[in-house]
């Protein structure tokens, strides 16, 4: 089924998202960016970044901010105001509507917006690998019927069936799932690139209603950048007597630096503006290096920040509410990343604002959610469960070896091959555990069974495959299979996910609390297992070499094996490591000794032994005193 995409058709930038597997996902454009500039060259039909790059070159031909003209009459006051600063020609079209004129050809704002939508549609199709012909498009809360109709027409021109037009603040609230909360009044504070909107919404029976909306159509992030540029340029001028704003190249660098400083000061308290060779004076290069603190930046833009609160107050008054009546505050627009704005909004409303979703994308995300509801995707999501806790088996030394990690989506299965811990061990015990702790005793035991009839063999040789399989209803089947004989044994556990939420939380919490001590305990066991394996290999080597190595060396190794065996079962990890290292070094001596003695004839045999000795030191198989029936990793 073709998906319904959500589109935030913005004044400066546009963004789109779609529901996928029950979750909203922002769709990147063909250039790999999540937002596309709402800039169009209608004669060449170029859209986005490519069109934006020609703004200076063809100011009369490249259209931006066309949203300001959507569904407006030419005689409207706002249009008359915009004519004064927009570089392209705005004329009176059919029925007195405002249209754009380029080279004698007129374009309605709908047509221009449709070109943006067409690009988004095309990029979404390429991304999703499917046709996209339905959309939910957002508009500002203050858009009247004519403006909404015009937006809808733009969608239709672009070949999109507009399933619904929704308000931007409503979309932002949907993105935070506020429709499911029992809140009555929601405030949406939206400070974008070029416009500021404030809206009070009332939620009743899952339906959002706009109580009041206000704003400033010419206040946004660009103004903040300009303040910083002016400050830096003035500072440079005071020091060097040159106005950088008059040199396009220097201005460009200054603008980039100002934007970078603004972004950096959202996460750090100080930033450096470092612009070497910014200009030339008397044939000598001049560099510009200065520091800016967050406090400095905040005081520079304080006036702009405070400017947003006049509309906020007016809006609250129109809505007939006080800050006490507000249950939720939502932040939208890139500028709301600024800590000062977050703090001021929080101070004014006495409530921490929502800001988990990317403020540049939150409106598109909300539109996608609305699209998902219309398309049935949201309610029709197949709920696949996950395992709340890790499932594993006990291995030598009482360690839990996880097979299925927690949060794995089920149905799922996983298998791993284990071996025996002792020579001639004919049975293994499979002990199934649930929990996040590294040691078996700390986790919940789900069941155990024994696989018998393994043919006698040295430790580590038999191969027992243990398979965990959880079906969609959470029933866990554990099967152990001896690869040599084909013998199999299994157990079915029905209560593997049947823990209450509190139990799960408790177990997770315990795992976090005991993380450090558990790690220590596990390390000790691992060191012990390695020591045991090393002692075993050393004994085997001694048996193999017999008279080929000097007796004193053999005695030394035997002594070190005994020493290691004594310290191994104590709780001193360092002592075990020291004894292991000593034994491992002694073992290497055997290899060297034998190598020098039998240069030619026994070269091959010696290499094998050396390999054995080397392997014991490197691979460190995790063994300890073998216990009958224990599974060893």
């Amino acid at each position, binding site marked *: 089924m073709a998906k319904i995409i959500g589109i935030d058709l913005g004044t400066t930038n546009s963004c789109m998202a779609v529901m996928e597997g029950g979750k909203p996902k922002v769709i990147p454009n063909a250039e*790999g960016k999540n937002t596309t500039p709402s800039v169009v060259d209608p004669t060449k039909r170029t859209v986005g970044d490519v069109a934006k790059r020609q703004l200076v*070159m063809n100011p009369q031909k490249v259209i931006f901010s066309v949203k300001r003209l959507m569904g407006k009459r030419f005689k409207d006051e706002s249009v008359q105001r915009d004519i004064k600063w927009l570089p392209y020609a705005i004329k009176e079209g059919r029925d007195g509507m405002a249209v754009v004129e380029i080279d004698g050809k007129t374009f309605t704002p709908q047509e221009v917006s449709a070109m943006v939508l067409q690009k988004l549609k095309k990029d979404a199709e390429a991304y999703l690998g499917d046709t996209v012909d339905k959309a939910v498009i957002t508009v500002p809360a203050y858009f009247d019927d004519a403006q909404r109709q015009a937006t809808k027409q733009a969608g239709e021109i672009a070949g999109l069936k507009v399933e619904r037009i929704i308000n931007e603040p409503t979309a932002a609230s949907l993105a935070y799932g506020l429709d499911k909360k029992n809140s009555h009044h929601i405030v949406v504070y939206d400070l974008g690139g070029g416009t500021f909107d404030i809206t009070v919404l009332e939620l009743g029976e899952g339906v959002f209603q706009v109580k009041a909306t206000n704003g400033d159509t010419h206040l946004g992030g660009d103004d903040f950048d300009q303040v910083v540029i002016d400050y830096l340029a003035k500072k440079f001028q005071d020091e060097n007597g040159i106005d950088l704003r008059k040199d396009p190249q220097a201005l*460009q660098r200054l603008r980039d630096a100002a934007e970078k400083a603004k972004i950096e000061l959202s996460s750090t308290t100080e930033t450096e503006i470092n612009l070497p060779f910014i200009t030339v004076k008397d044939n000598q290069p001049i560099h510009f290096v200065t520091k800016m603190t967050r406090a400095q930046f905040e005081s520079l833009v304080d006036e702009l920040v405070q400017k947003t609160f006049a509309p906020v107050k007016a809006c609250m008054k129109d809505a007939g509410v006080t800050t006490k009546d507000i249950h939720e505050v939502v932040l939208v627009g890139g500028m709301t990343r600024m800590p000062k704005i977050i703090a001021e909004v929080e101070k004014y409303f006495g409530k921490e604002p929502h800001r988990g979703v990317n403020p540049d994308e939150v409106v598109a995300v909300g539109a996608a959610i609305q699209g998902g509801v219309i398309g049935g995707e949201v309610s029709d999501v197949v709920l696949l469960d996950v395992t709340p806790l890790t499932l594993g088996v006990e291995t030598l030394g009482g360690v839990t070896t996880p097979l299925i990690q927690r949060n794995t989506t089920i149905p799922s299965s996983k298998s791993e091959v284990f071996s025996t811990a002792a020579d001639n061990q004919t049975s293994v015990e499979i002990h199934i555990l649930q929990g996040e702790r590294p040691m078996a005793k700390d986790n919940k035991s789900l069941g155990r069974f024994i696989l018998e009839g393994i043919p006698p063999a040295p430790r580590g040789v038999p191969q027992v495959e243990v398979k965990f399989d959880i079906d969609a209803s959470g029933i866990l089947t554990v099967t152990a299979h001896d690869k040599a004989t084909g013998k199999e044994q299994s157990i079915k556990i029905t209560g593997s996910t049947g823990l209450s939420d509190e139990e799960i939380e408790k177990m997770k919490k315990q795992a976090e609390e005991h993380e450090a001590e558990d790690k220590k305990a596990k390390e000790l066991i691992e060191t012990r297992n390695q020591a045991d394996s090393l002692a075993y290999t050393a004994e085997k080597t001694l048996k193999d070499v017999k008279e080929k190595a000097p007796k004193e060396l053999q005695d030394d190794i035997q002594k070190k094996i005994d020493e290691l065996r004594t310290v191994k079962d104590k709780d001193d990890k360092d002592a075990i490591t020291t004894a292991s290292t000593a034994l491992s070094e002694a073992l290497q001596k055997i290899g060297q000794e034998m190598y020098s003695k039998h240069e030619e004839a026994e070269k091959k045999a010696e290499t094998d032994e050396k390999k054995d000795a080397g392997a014991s030191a490197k691979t460190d198989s995790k063994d300890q005193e073998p216990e009958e029936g224990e599974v060893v990793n």
Partner: protein
Amino acid sequence: MQQNKKNTSTKKSSTEEKIKQLKVDLELCNDKYLRALADYRNLDNRLTQEKMRALLDIQKRTVTAFLSIKDDIDNAALFEENEGLMLIKKKFEDILRTFGVEKIEAEGKEYSADTMECIQTKPAEAHNQVLQVHEQGYLLNGELLRVAKVTVGVANESKDTTN
């Protein structure tokens, strides 16, 4: 006898109905399964693509961050005929080349919005020709890494425009 027959036929029809229902259910399940499988395959393909994209993106971001130093070195080289500096410049360019970074040749060429951003226009005889490069543009393995910021000549224009 007749009763028996009737019973059998009722039984038969109810079994038939059951089979019919089961067939419908099976079809539904099969359809759901195929859809899930298709969704998975599509997701898998896309994840691979996204991974490649992400790798390229990281590479782009890292290389772009170093381009500002390249600009500074280029600027410094304009003022100082220092041999050491020239060696550093060359070394930097070699490293960029090994990453697949290449310069966008703009000066004297025709303006193209695909790789260049016009930050100023000046009256000139040759319309649409790049007169000056203010910030060097680069491609990374043929893809746009950073646009070249340029002044473009405009024929029959009365005054300069500045961004």
